[in-house]
């Protein structure tokens, strides 16, 4: 047993101090029933991860010993599409038995009353379902005809089984990022009783390379959009909103009480990702693997991988305006995944940064 879960779930009055969470994003496959035009994956052909759960558990146990018991491990199951794995429920049971927490990422279209119940009884902390617009017209333009209704129905099925669900909204420039879109999305969240809505921007990699205009490469335009999102969220105080972006806290303003900001960059802090072919990524959206579990261990990569260490210490490697920026200690260059996706170069400024260059 890796953790004493009792400490995490007892009522507040008897709970000890909360542990820190280390997240491993684990792709159970790289096959999907949808062909979303903004997907950060490229070809999707792997039906089953090259790294099985037992091997993952071994690596996690070693990593957990290194990190210490102040951490709990959360396995973020992703794909592809997780519901395409026929042994998904068995996997969830094994993860539960090992004592790890679980979150699942899915497009929601394959959820049925039966598998919603099956997921719910296996103690999945949260199921995250993507809705890239407040209605079928916006969502289906990216994900295919009829998918909005299917995803919404999937959310409802899970909610009916007491399964916490959150919604993930990928911001795409000019497609779903107007005040009207946000307002309609918050109305939907209120109506459907979503636990929360996560916003993050599109990453120009994988299939999303074919949608360059949707990526944010104009700082002032991006800033204006974030301000509008925050202002609209303030009109819906009962809707929980999370904005995940490394630049979000660079806004010099107050945030509504219902908005939680997440500067997101977890590189070598409390996150690592293993894709279906066994590659290990510092950030799943940063399309440059740091190693592979087919010829290395997670602990060795975490402790000794040169690229991972450089990414962690990127402040000293950053080029361009980041070198003289007065807030570079906190910002560290914004989102490396966004800049790498656009330029195929590491350590260059985030293309969505709105700050002016400061002369030396």
């Amino acid at each position: 047993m890796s953790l004493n879960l009792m400490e995490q779930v007892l009522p507040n009055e008897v709970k000890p101090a909360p542990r820190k969470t280390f997240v491993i994003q684990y792709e159970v496959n790289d096959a999907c029933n949808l062909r979303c035009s903004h997907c950060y994956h490229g070809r999707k052909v792997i039906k089953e991860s090259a790294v099985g759960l037992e091997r993952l558990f071994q690596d996690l146990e070693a990593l957990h010993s290194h990190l210490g018991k102040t951490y709990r491990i959360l396995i973020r199951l992703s794909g592809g599409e997780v519901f395409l794995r026929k042994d998904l429920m068995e996997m969830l049971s094994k993860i539960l038995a090992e004592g790890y927490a679980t979150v699942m990422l899915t497009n929601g279209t394959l959820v049925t009353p039966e598998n919603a119940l099956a997921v719910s009884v296996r103690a999945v902390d949260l199921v995250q379902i993507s809705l890239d617009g407040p209605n079928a017209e916006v969502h289906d333009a990216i994900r295919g005809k009829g998918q909005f209704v299917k995803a919404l129905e999937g959310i409802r099925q899970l909610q009916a089984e007491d399964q916490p669900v959150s919604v993930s909204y990928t911001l795409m420039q000019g497609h779903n990022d107007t005040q009207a879109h946000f307002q309609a999305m918050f109305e939907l969240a209120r109506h459907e009783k979503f636990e929360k809505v996560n916003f993050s921007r599109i990453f120009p990699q994988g299939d999303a390379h074919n949608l360059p205009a949707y990526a944010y490469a104009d700082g002032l335009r991006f800033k204006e959009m974030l301000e509008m999102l925050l202002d609209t969220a303030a009109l819906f105080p009962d809707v929980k909103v999370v904005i995940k972006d490394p630049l979000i806290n660079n806004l010099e303003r107050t945030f509504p009480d219902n908005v939680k900001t997440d500067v997101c960059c977890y590189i070598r802090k409390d996150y690592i990702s293993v894709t279906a072919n066994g590659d290990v990524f510092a950030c799943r959206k940063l399309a440059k693997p740091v190693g592979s579990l087919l010829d290395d261990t997670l602990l060795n990569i975490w402790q000794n991988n040169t690229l991972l260490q450089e990414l962690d210490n990127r402040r000293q490697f950053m080029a361009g305006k980041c070198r003289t920026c007065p807030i570079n200690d906190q910002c560290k260059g914004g989102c490396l995944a966004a800049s790498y996706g656009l330029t195929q170069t590491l350590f260059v400024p985030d293309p969505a940064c709105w700050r002016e260059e400061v002369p030396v």
Partner: protein
Amino acid sequence: MQVNRPVTPNSQAPVSEVPRNQPPKAPEKEPNVPSSSTTPSAPTDTANVKPVATDGMTADASGKIQEAKLGSEIGNVLGDNENDDIGQLKDAMHKAAEEFGPEVGEKMFNKLFIDPKSSAEYDKGLAEAAKKYKELKKSDPAAAETFKKDMACKMCEKINKTKNGEDDPGC
């Protein structure tokens, strides 16, 4: 050149018009109480027993919950399942759920023992997870007990909605 599509966010039918499925009906037949549980014994003293809300349940299901509550200790009600791992895990889950209060305990009891669909799914899920419990019982009985309590606690936490979706790190 942007590739914007002409999209108007509110051009879709209102959300309220997207039909929800009908909620499941209560079973008409007598619910299947798993073999691991025993029939609760009739209470001998009902004077100070708080009634339990039973909205939407069949009379039979409601009666079983009432009886279990009147017995006050579900452990007593399900007490002869020492040799049944799944029964023990279910029992532990129910006890853990009751830590969150009687309403949560009752909801969990219903899911574990009364609702036939949910009870069957718990049987399946726990059978998979109980493999480790069985191994631990042989090698380290104390660790097995900790495992049982931890897993039970984790499995029932959601029913209390102690998690509300805040815990979702990662891009």
